[in-house]
């Protein structure tokens, strides 16, 4: 068994979708390939699906009297849950987060259905070396209830009334439109990305830690206007990216590029073995997190711009330098 198998391939999937249709034209095949497959598939896939005079096609479609194409198979292809897929689901049933999605009786029944399936992996095969220890309590019933309310509202575009404790320890209540649920593997926490509403109109973009929610009420009102997740992320992105000089010292380039792989970035200049200049775009509300991560690299990287970001680094370093000098080692 292997996940890198042709049964999971794009070509098989596109062929399956085409064979589900009782009748299809060559034009529709081209369109479907363009939409569902890789960029260059249009050069390779159509001639394997559309009957060719030299019989070099796969023989899965034949021409009918109207000039269109019909599947050679008698029934619509069926998608079977493979052994690997069942094993993977079985492994997930031991993850505490599964209870956010499945009610207890559903979980019991699914476990019974998969009782003869070997799990794909067990949680003890893995160790997170630096995950924070104060993650959300996924076993907490109120947490599970809140999570499901949010999930349902997200799917139906329902407006929710939420009361939560903010990061600054203030109780906040308001109406919110859920956009996405964010999970952080580092924090082991879920947060709700949402727009807050004022007088029925989108007021501003917000983030609510699900673990800090005290109460959620359904409003049974849906937000009917278009809301854009792209717009939400765009609003949260910094105006000026941070520019960093990365040296080769202590394998800094490799460490830096790996650690900051999740960020949108651009490498401006580099020479083969020396320094390179990188621009990183970030969520402006996560600025402090980015700053402390950059500082942990020490002198092998340097924050160049923007001036206010560099200034924050400078202030912390000066404070640190002064502290060490004041408490000089014997």
């Amino acid at each position, binding site marked *: *068994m292997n*996940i890198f198998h*042709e*049964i*999971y391939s*794009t070509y098989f*999937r596109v062929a399956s*979708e085409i064979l589900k249709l009782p009748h299809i034209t060559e034009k529709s095949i081209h369109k479907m390939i363009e939409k569902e497959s890789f*960029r*260059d598939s249009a050069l390779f896939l159509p001639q394997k699906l559309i009957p060719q005079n030299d019989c070099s096609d796969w*023989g899965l479609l034949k021409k009918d009297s109207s000039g269109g194409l019909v599947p*050679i198979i*008698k029934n619509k292809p*069926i*998608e*079977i*849950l*493979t052994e*690997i897929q*069942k094993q*993977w*689901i079985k492994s*997930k049933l031991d993850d505490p987060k*599964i209870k*956010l999605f*499945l*009610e207890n009786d559903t979980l019991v029944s699914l476990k019974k259905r998969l009782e003869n399936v070997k799990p794909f*992996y067990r949680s003890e*095969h*893995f*160790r997170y*070396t*630096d995950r924070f*220890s*104060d993650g959300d309590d996924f076993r907490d019933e109120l947490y599970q209830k809140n999570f499901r309310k949010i999930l349902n509202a997200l*799917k139906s575009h329902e407006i929710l009334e939420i009361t939560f404790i903010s990061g600054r320890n203030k109780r906040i209540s308001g109406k919110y439109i859920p956009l*996405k*649920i*964010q999970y952080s*593997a*580092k924090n082991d926490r879920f947060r709700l990305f949402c727009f807050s509403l004022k007088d029925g109109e989108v007021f501003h973009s917000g983030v609510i830690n699900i673990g800090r929610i005290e109460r959620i009420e359904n409003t049974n009102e849906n937000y009917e206007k278009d809301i854009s997740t792209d717009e939400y992320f765009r609003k949260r992105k910094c105006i000026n990216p941070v520019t960093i000089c990365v040296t080769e010292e202590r394998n800094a380039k490799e*460490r830096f590029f*790996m650690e900051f*792989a*999740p960020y949108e*970035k651009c*490498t401006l200049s580099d020479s083969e073995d020396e320094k*390179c200049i990188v621009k990183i775009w970030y969520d402006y509300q996560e600025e402090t997190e980015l700053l*402390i*991560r950059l500082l942990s690299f020490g002198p092998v990287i*340097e924050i160049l711009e923007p001036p206010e970001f560099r200034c924050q680094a*400078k202030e912390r*370093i*000066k404070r640190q*330098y002064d*502290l*060490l*000098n004041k*408490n000089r*080692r014997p």
Partner: protein
Amino acid sequence: MGGFSELIKSFDKTRDYIRDFFIYGLKVRNDFDRKSLRTYDDEKRRIESWFGDYVKYDRSERGQKVSITVDSGTVSENPLYKAYRSKSFTDNDIKLHFFIIDVLHNGESLTLKEIVSDIDKNYNEIFDVQTIRNKLKEYVKEGIITSGKKGKASCFRLSTDRVNEFLHDYDGLADAIKFFSETQKFGIVGNSILESARLKNNLFVMKHNYIVHTLEDIIIPEIISAIEQKKYISIISFKAKNNKINNNNQVIPMKIFSSVQTGRRYIVGYIPAVKCFHSFRLDFIKSVRTGDICDEYDSIYEKFSHDLNYCFGVSFGSGKIETTVIVFFADEKCEKFVIDRLKREKRNGVLEKIDDNLFRLTVKAFDSFEVMQWVKSFTGRIISVTGDNKYAIDRFYNDISKMYSMYGGEEQ
């Protein structure tokens, strides 16, 4: 480009190229000296075909740089999963896939002879019996078909676990798969279920999301299987020159270590040749081969479990435990968030309040350098650092001086 195919037979080479394009994005054509420039051109073209808009081009003095750029905190599906959807196959593979599923469609149990005859009759295609037998055997292993006996003959029927029915039967399962398909630990498998059900994750986004980890999912099952069976493994690395340990080492695998902050993942194992635990970067591993059963597995695992108490990150150093003591300043009235940070990030360290606004953290670990890397994230709040590893501590003090001077201060 004659003979170019966007499909690939093996994942190894492609993995290495995607990683270089995605992680670094600063290499030019001549930097890829592993094989030939023709290979580079083919791999680049495939990557462009699979990842489309995520591929970016920049000019540099050394030539054109190709990179895969993704703000992974905002995407709903890991774009690198597409690489897994590119396995090459033969014409017979795809024909038999649809023909076999079609002849078994009504749930009936058929013998090999009946299946061969039905395929011939229904689709006017004649296949070698052995070819169909092999395909049936393969599909039994994959779980698409179940096998049984009809009299003395083997018979085959389609599995009753149909994707859509399965998701329909268990309320909430589809949402759970949407979530887990974007998390570590083989999200690619969950994504394959969504693809079969024509679903997409439209609910979740991931923070601190190292999408490149999926490229390692191809080798981890072999490691997990070896752990389960308490067997040795041999590790073949991409870049042996970067590894201190020789290529093709005999290793007794213990656990997969994952850093959610640095993005690195490792297989940690015991190396009998040097009698110590060692971590190997998963992204540098080309392939893993399972060896014989290790008779001493349980006793080694017991020692490993004990040693974990002194492993701050992934390093087991020389096996000698070093103590590092750090005193932090945090204003208890208005900087509780700093104290909270210390509590949740200290791992095996012991945190004590020693005076007003002063907190002492004592860490006993195999590698003080790992501790100091983390300590530097508290720059601006460290009163003092003392401990056994003078070199690591001196480096910290020197680093602060260097940074002070780098940012415009005058070094004293």
